């Protein structure tokens, strides 16, 4: 005699949105830099911003901040991201 048992997991989560095509160039683009509020992230992103401006000819860099490392970006920050062509989400530590 066999035993029938149930799957305890939530299963795969189906993504309902696809990925946008990648950018071929950053020239003339607006790039958002998301600060996760960990130690040293500001220095890391300062350097990234300098590289983006000096070597890639970006139009603008928008600096964004999460409230702290363990919470998601709030709606106002997410809204600001929609102004960007690309986002770099940093994990400084």
């Amino acid at each position, binding site marked *: 005699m*066999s*035993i029938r048992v*149930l799957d*305890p*997991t*939530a299963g795969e989560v189906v993504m309902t949105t696809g990925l946008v095509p990648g950018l071929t160039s950053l020239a003339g683009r607006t790039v958002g830099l998301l600060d996760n509020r960990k130690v040293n992230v500001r220095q890391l992103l300062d350097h990234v911003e300098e590289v983006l401006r000096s070597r890639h000819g970006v139009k603008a860099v928008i600096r964004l901040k999460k409230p702290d490392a*363990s*919470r998601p970006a709030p709606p106002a920050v997410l809204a600001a991201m929609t102004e960007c062509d690309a986002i770099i989400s940093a994990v400084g530590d």
Partner: protein
Amino acid sequence: MTLANPPLQSAMYELADALDVNEFYQHNGWTDGLPIVPPTEERVQEYLDAAGLAPGDLIGVESVRQRPITAEKVAINAVMAGCLPTYMPVVVTALRAMCDEDFNLHGSTASTGGSAPFVVVNGPVRTAIGMNATHGVLGTGNRTNATIGRAVRLVLINVLGCIPGQLDRSTLGHPGKFTFCIAEDEEDSPWTPLAQERGVPAGASGITVMASEAPRQVMNEWTHDPEEILETFAAEIRHNMLTYSIWPGNYALVIPKQLRELLVAAGWQKQNIREYIYRAARVFRRDWAKVGKGQLVARGGGPDQEFIALRSPDDLLVIAAGGPAGGFGVVIPPWLGPRSHAVTRTI
């Protein structure tokens, strides 16, 4: 028209026997590493009925990743953990509390800090389902305490994907991640029960959850003075602030009978304890030099900058529990100060 018993939605597996079920679940990573009880359809239905829930009822949503926790999955994991059906309301309420935004379920379970949800149960449900509040309360030996905490952990693993090295990024974790659930000893304490202090009506049952690091045990058997007794607890909190995390937030004290009776004899209520610890659990930036963190002394506000453990006396959870003998107590530190708040719910 609604069905009396809406059908269960989970995938079903047919295996030879209970031992094969255990091996299959172990192989799939669906446990905490310990053996499980086979979650058969009949058992899972029985657990749902005991809680008055339909399979699709939503217990909560982990808001960051938008992961729903359904009653069916909770029941499956509660069976696996070794719960009895009567424990379901406690498991469900603990999970509901953890889905409160204040608890920060995603952050506290994914963090390298490696915290575990500490569950404290109050009210008549404790005795009705046979919980332990005395001997070895933070240890082994009581099925109810052990399996309620384990059911919460299995839901985190199986439903939210809190698997070490995947979503759970704990560097170390601690033994409370297997199970971390106690009852308060209301019968042998004149103090107001924790849940009641935090808004659960008198006579009702309630649970409190707190994202916690490992307990730090203290001992003071050399005084009857309440302030001296509490100074030992405060010293351990100060040590935690310096060696682990400086951020203020909820701390829990578990105070067993021997020290509790001395405090009670001196007329101290929980509020007096909270106010004392609020005043005493403070350190200065310069103190970091004593614990190998001298690099921090000159930063921020400089050597004389003061740090508090509690943002207000109410941040301290005082719990009467533990065996009768021994001048011991426990400090349970927060995962990361104000990033997660203790949450209390009525069952």
